[in-house]
């Protein structure tokens, strides 16, 4: 006789209490994100003055830099939830890690594309072997590794744990990779071509970037919570809870 799970497995984790809570937070984050991003665009595109060195092209930083920040930040947050999952064996933490990955990968992709769009007018090449752009590319490979491992394992339980271990190993390697690429960059090119030296930051530009960054942060929270709710429904739809 096929005995569906009779114990309420939610009792062992807190997705049940988390689900409605996330539902409340999402609208606020979404609205906040929209407002801040609009305001950030307003600052970046309209108020900020022309940069004497790079002309108008520098305005790409208002999107490129926050995206690069969040691609790295979200990977570390994902590794954090992976560690929580492994330590407490809590289903919810694994789900959070799984939900963060796509957004992190999206920001990495955006950072790469905007980086090359910025490199073309400034240095005349679509791809610049700059230390940060190269580590961004490797970070994308780490995300690809995470997704492919998760897709390859059928048993959900093992997929969670295995990808959690991989996320942790990746997180330990991110600083090492960044350092080795920086070292490699200085060995071969000297630091003449370097995207990292942002133009002299007028206060208004920094402020614009900060506003955009907070807007991206709220956006990420909203999107990740929505995805976690989908995860909870998906995993629970197999359990026929509702």
């Amino acid at each position, binding site marked *: 006789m096929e005995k569906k799970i009779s114990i309420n497995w939610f009792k062992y984790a807190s997705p049940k209490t988390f689900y409605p809570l996330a539902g409340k937070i999402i609208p606020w984050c979404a609205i906040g994100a929209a407002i801040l991003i609009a305001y950030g665009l307003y600052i970046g595109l309209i108020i900020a003055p022309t940069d004497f060195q790079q002309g108008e092209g520098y305005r790409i930083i208002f999107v490129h830099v926050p995206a690069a920040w969040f691609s790295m930040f979200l990977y570390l947050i994902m590794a954090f939830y992976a560690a929580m999952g492994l330590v407490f064996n809590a289903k919810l933490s694994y789900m959070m890690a799984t939900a963060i990955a796509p957004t992190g990968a999206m920001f990495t992709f955006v950072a790469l594309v905007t980086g090359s769009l910025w490199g073309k007018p400034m240095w005349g090449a679509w791809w610049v072997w700059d230390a940060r752009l190269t580590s961004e590319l490797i970070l994308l490979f780490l995300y690809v590794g995470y997704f492919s491992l998760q897709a390859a394992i059928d048993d959900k339980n093992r997929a969670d744990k295995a990808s959690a271990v991989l996320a942790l190993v990746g997180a330990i390697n991110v600083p090492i990779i960044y350092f080795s690429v920086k070292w490699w960059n200085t060995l071969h090119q000297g630091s003449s071509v370097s995207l990292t030296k942002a133009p002299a930051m007028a206060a208004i530009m920094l402020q614009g970037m900060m506003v955009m960054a907070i807007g991206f942060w709220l956006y990420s929270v909203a999107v990740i919570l929505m995805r976690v709710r*989908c995860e909870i429904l998906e995993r629970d739809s197999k359990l026929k809870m509702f």
Partner: protein
Amino acid sequence: MHWNSISEFLAMGGYGFYVWGSFAVTFLSMTIELWLINQRRKSVTRTLEQ
């Protein structure tokens, strides 16, 4: 106001393609991500209703 005409604003000092390209890619990726999640939510709620 830094710009004095819409056309100048769009030209973005000659870097129009790159600047608008970057912003387009960013917000396009975001909307695609949102759209994907909605699709996923709809399909999950549909399977749950059965």
